[in-house]
């Protein structure tokens, strides 16, 4: 199925609200295995996305591009360039190829992999993005599945990002970027 601009607007508005509601929780997850600011950083990004959503934009590609710029210019850290690259690549794909949802998410996952040089299993947001893209392609994505992908990061040892410096001690905690990605795809499910 194709992602429409109207769906994308509803999706990202809902994502922004969800992140704002879970700011403290994301900070706590990040305090356990990172530097404690994933919620604060994502809040700056989604606040800018809310501003973007109030402007009138010509098409889906432009919307995705403005969302990418919000992440790149407001978030910082690792999540800014990672989410930013995902949405920038999705914007290009929507313009040049198609707005087929599964393809878009797969493009986003590939962008995250390219920017962060991570592999599936490294305990990063890619551990949610990649299986979500595959489930979407098979038309089998459910809320429960997304949570399963997220929960699977708990037992992984981090290989990328600041959590990787903890080595074995990173096990037993959810990855904060995987948690915010879980919110991204849970809210996507509510609009498609």
């Amino acid at each position: 199925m194709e992602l429409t601009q109207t769906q994308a607007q509803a999706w990202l508005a809902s994502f922004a609200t969800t992140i704002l509601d879970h700011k403290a929780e994301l900070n706590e997850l990040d305090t356990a295995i990172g530097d404690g600011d994933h919620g604060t950083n994502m809040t700056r990004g989604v606040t800018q996305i809310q501003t973007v959503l109030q402007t009138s934009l010509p098409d889906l590609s432009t919307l995705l591009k403005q969302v990418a710029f919000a992440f790149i210019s407001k978030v910082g850290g690792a999540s800014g360039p990672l989410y930013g690259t995902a949405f920038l690549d999705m914007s290009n794909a929507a313009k040049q190829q198609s707005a087929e949802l599964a393809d878009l998410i797969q493009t986003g996952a590939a962008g995250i992999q390219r920017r962060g040089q991570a592999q599936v299993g490294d305990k990063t947001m890619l551990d949610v993005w990649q299986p979500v893209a595959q489930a979407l392609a098979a038309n089998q994505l459910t809320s429960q599945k997304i949570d399963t992908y997220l929960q699977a990061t708990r037992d992984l040892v981090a290989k990328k990002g600041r959590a990787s410096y903890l080595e074995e001690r990173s096990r037993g905690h959810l990855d904060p970027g995987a948690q915010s990605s879980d919110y991204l795809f849970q809210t996507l499910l509510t609009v498609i």
Partner: protein
Amino acid sequence: MKKFINQIEQIVPEMVQGLVQTSNGQLRCLEQTTAVIRNDPQFQNQTQVGLVSGGGSGHEPLHAGFVGDGMLSAAVCGEIFTSPTPDQIYAAINAVDQGQGVLLIVKNYSGDVMNFDMAREMAEADNHQVATVVVDDDIAIQDSEQGHRGVAGTVLVEKILGAAARAGYTLEQLQDLGQQVIKQTKTLAVALHAATVPGVGHPGFELADDELEFGVGIHNERGRNTEKLVTAHELAAKMLEQLQGEFTDFTQQHYAILVNGMGATPLMEQYIFANDVADILQQQGVAVDFWKVGNLVTSIDMTGISLTLLQLQAGWRDWLTADVTTLGW
């Protein structure tokens, strides 16, 4: 949490404004950014390769406190413990490029590396000549896939490259010198108490009264392991032993040494620890040609101390002792 702040969201912009306003005209802030650049008359009069560093805030005086004649041309201040964004880094590159190119000095953290890479891509698209050196002096994490972290040794890299840039080194020469210095810079840090990130409101981890965290980084992440507290002398001996293992022919060489407080460690204790380091090296007959002690690369209010050894090559000591006009060196 008790802090001398107004609003959590305004910490970084207010800090940058305060730094600039009280710099006696030596610094200015690039409009619409939290990038701090040189404003001394010498900056316009004597052109050179631009040196831009930056990273998350919370490490003051690193990096903005090291902007000035003989050190950095500009520093980009990110949010607390968060890399600055590519548009801000790009603005700094654009502002300090005097036609001889710009060298980026980046600490090896995934966020910093990604944001500086994106900024370099933007600047190159606008025909700026940009090169990067990535500092990875921390030896606590040995087998991480993303390599060693960039920590306190960064300030020694900035000092040497700053003096060399002022002396007329080209972009290529600076990148080469930077890579050589980084290869010879090794750091290890310990903490007695974690820092409190203002947005979080409580210390990042808890330690008992008789515990210390060995091998911490500068972003409040836990260290390699939690150990029993020992005396300053025992700690100095243990840290030196691990650092020595990183160098070949350790006792035959000359060194610069940085004993660095991480925010809430009294200078009194830093001098005691430095004294122990000096005694042990003296007993080994190791030549120390340059010392620096103080709070140069902090981690907000972490009670911690780091020890950096830089194995000197010909001429490097002169770059370290060269005059500099900065707030922090």
